């Protein structure tokens, strides 16, 4: 029975190897208290800077991976049974609202939360605003000169045939910037008129990009003439040295609240809470200002130096996160059916 024994022991060996591989896999999950795992929707370069400061202040190491808002939420939902990260950092508040419906966020009210205006945080403590970003028009100066145009100051300016095939903006299925654009239009023009408007605008569209900032580089390099972006993305590309014009529509725009929140079942809960506490202090706003990370801080007591972030002359429209969350899918479906496929 020697061969039989050999066979059995070989099978056992294989099974052992396999199981130890899984065990190793499982062990990788366990982390000690000194680190924090994060999905960042905020662009990598900003997140890197901000987390470095956080580590300096608290001694907590941050591991993170940057994902688009959709990917991040999809991941978090898929990983619900066994969360891989402790905090979701950045991304529009309505992503968080969608996540609340899936029960993936934990409630936590950070220490200095009361200093942040109520419209910038979740009423139930699921998320806290870390920055405000209005939508803006961004156009290529050379393009405007060539066509003899002024920077657009009304939504209707973009319907000018001079923009034919020259606009790049985000695709509503994948980008929070795009849904923000629809919210703005609905708030400024009314729902049905907003979609009528977009049908017309569609004639001038060169490309709907997957990411909210996807069109910024093409506009900067002259591949496209103009687009609609969050201010943070527009300023970022302008700061790189491209000749661009930033302007606002007189009918007004809504703004996004960049948020952060703790994942339900977080394995490093106390560290996660410390990150949320840190984010509610003035310190985060100062880090952003110092590093030219162009979010408008949610703490009114932080002074903003960049004139482009001065909102006093801009018509800002209010649209709270729960309204956005409730209407998002409906708007997106309407957008696909009526605008893209017309």
């Amino acid at each position, binding site marked *: 029975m020697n061969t039989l024994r050999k066979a059995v022991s070989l099978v056992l060996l294989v099974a052992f190897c396999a199981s130890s591989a899984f065990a190793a896999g499982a062990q990788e999950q366990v982390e000690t208290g000194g680190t924090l795992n994060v999905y960042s929707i905020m662009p990598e370069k900003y997140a890197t800077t901000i987390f470095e400061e956080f580590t300096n202040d608290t001694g907590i190491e941050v*591991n*993170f991976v940057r994902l688009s808002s959709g990917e991040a939420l999809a991941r978090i939902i898929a990983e619900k049974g066994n969360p891989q990260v402790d905090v979701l950092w950045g991304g529009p508040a309505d992503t968080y609202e969608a996540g609340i419906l899936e029960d993936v966020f934990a409630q936590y009210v950070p220490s200095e939360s009361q200093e942040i205006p109520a419209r910038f945080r979740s009423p139930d403590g699921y998320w806290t605003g870390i920055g405000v970003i209005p939508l803006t028009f961004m156009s290529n100066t050379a393009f405007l000169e060539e066509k003899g145009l002024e920077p657009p100051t009304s939504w209707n300016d973009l319907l000018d045939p001079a923009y034919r095939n020259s606009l790049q903006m985000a695709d509503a299925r994948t980008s929070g910037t795009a849904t923000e654009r629809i919210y703005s239009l609905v708030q400024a023009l009314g729902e049905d008129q907003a979609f009528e408007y977009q049908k017309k605008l569609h004639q001038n569209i060169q490309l709907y990009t997957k990411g909210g900032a996807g069109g910024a580089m093409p506009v900067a390099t002259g591949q496209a003439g103009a687009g609609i972006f969050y201010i943070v993305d527009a300023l970022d590309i302008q700061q790189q040295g491209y000749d661009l014009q930033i302007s606002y529509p007189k009918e007004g725009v809504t703004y996004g609240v960049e948020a952060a929140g703790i994942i339900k079942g977080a394995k490093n809960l106390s560290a996660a809470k410390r990150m949320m506490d840190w984010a509610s202090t003035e310190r985060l706003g100062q880090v952003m200002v110092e590093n030219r990370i162009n979010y408008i801080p949610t703490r009114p007591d932080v002074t903003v130096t960049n004139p482009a972030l001065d909102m006093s002359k801009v018509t800002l429209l209010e649209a709270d996160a729960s309204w956005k969350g409730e209407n998002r*899918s409906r708007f997106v479906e309407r957008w696909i059916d009526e605008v893209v496929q017309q």
Partner: protein
Amino acid sequence: MDRRSGSTVALIHISATIGIVYSCQAAHNPIAYKEGAMIERNTLKPTRKSLMKSDPALFSAMVAVWISFAIFIFLPLLRLVMTTFVIDGTFTFENMKEALGKSYHIKALYGSLILATAVSISGTILGYIFALAVTRTTLPRVFKVLLGGVTILPLISPPFTSSISLTLALGPNGMLLKAFGIENFMIYGFLGTWISETLTYFPVAFMVISAILNTMSANLDDAALSLGASRWRMFRTVTIPLSIPGIGNSVLLLFGASLADFATPLILGGHSFPVLPTEAYLMITGMFDLRGGASLSFLLLIPALFVFLLQRLLIGKKSYISVTGKSGARTEFAKLPRELSMVIAVVCSIVVAFILYLYAIILWGSFVEVWSVNNSFTLRHYEYVFKHGRKAISDTLIIAFLSTVIGSVLAVIIGYIVQRKKFIGKRVFEFSSLLNYALPGTVVGIAYIIAFNERPILLTGTLSILVAAYVFRYYATGIRSVIASLEQIDPALEEASLSLGASSTRTFTHITIPLIIPAVLAGMRYLFIHCMTAISATIFLVSVRWTLLTTRILESMTELQFSQASAFSIVLILIVFIADAIMFYLLKLSTAKFHKPQEITNEKIGA
């Protein structure tokens, strides 16, 4: 243990048991129990022993392989099916209906099929032209070497690299368009995706077709010419008909590749030309709709499996590229007619120039301060890559290395079992092994994340899940080359070893392995390249702890850091190039040892 993970365990057990039952029946005699009806049984009945006793090593290998199939192929697929078709415990087509109900998705299905058809045709034609240039023209050797070298570039680059530079060259206000004064050229949509995928995949057609053009007997050419056929006539009546199998195979390969490609349409598809893999990806990442995405990927599964089966049917059991090593007196292939050679040379030059131009853009972009605004030279982006991308680079290398090693071992075992052993369910076995390869990457990625996110097989966020995804998807090339190599090695060599008293294990390690090492190394090269550059399956699987260069490139792209993306791409291409060169060198070394002075017995190996 909750109910769901309980069912998962049960599932694994069932799949594994099926595997074990199959392998137990794998007696040496394939018809052991079918013949009873036909033969009047003798009283001296031989007792038939199970495989477990007669060949314990094979038995354990089969069990191990079936278990790994159960875990890494069947389980994810089953979970995907369940996610798609089971709502609240009942089987339903609701999700499917919903996915099919949207006209945009139907459009995406058509888009996928049209694109795949177009790419497979154009890519094959271009590949054929390149193959002719290399094998059948009198063009200078330098030029032929250049053709070979340049076609490697798209093979070893991450899939979206060329898309980006294509946008810069042919996009709105693109440099080439400006240079030629072309207006109203719309790259976003079918046209751009088609051009980019053709450029990305035609090297595959080139390799497949030039292999078959090379193995054709030159004597046929001579015969045709000596019968008074003109060169034109010979080309039409001999060369083209004989390369039909290569053409067919290339068309199917490209069709499958295009069908599964998600990165190119993601960048170039625009909104007017949706395709399924990209839609599935957007559905999940954009609309937070896993079920919808799963349903869409199911739509993709049907044409993908169809093409896969067709290809298996076409190639059949034989590998038609037979590298017999026979070195009889071989005459030169007849050259093509002069006019045709000229046309071919011109087409190849244009394509090569264009590819070089696209890569030059990337190289240049990686060294300039700010793309197209401040063109002063800088190493800043490389600094960034090596400072912030170091982890991605080392992670990618670790993952690629592990996947290559594990994948090769599995490929050898599976290829050996399939080619050398007879057992019930062999077809099922072979088909299962290639399933992940036949499915589009997005489907596999989604299936993996659904399947491995809970106990008992908790793998999300680990190295294992990335390695497994690569191994079970890309070892297919390895399996193919092992099988092809074994087909050319006379089983008598292994029988000789057994008859000399060596165990089957010793035979395998001392005889089989050394003889197929060249094929194994060739398979490893492809495996490594894929692990370094593929993104479709693994984009869902990268984690906080394990990340990949390709996702970093995509990331840089979405963050508008074009120069950074270029620097990442260049680094990646260099790594692959070096690794590939090392493996190619090893390949030469391993074949030189006994294949060189072997001319006499090589014929016997090939017998």
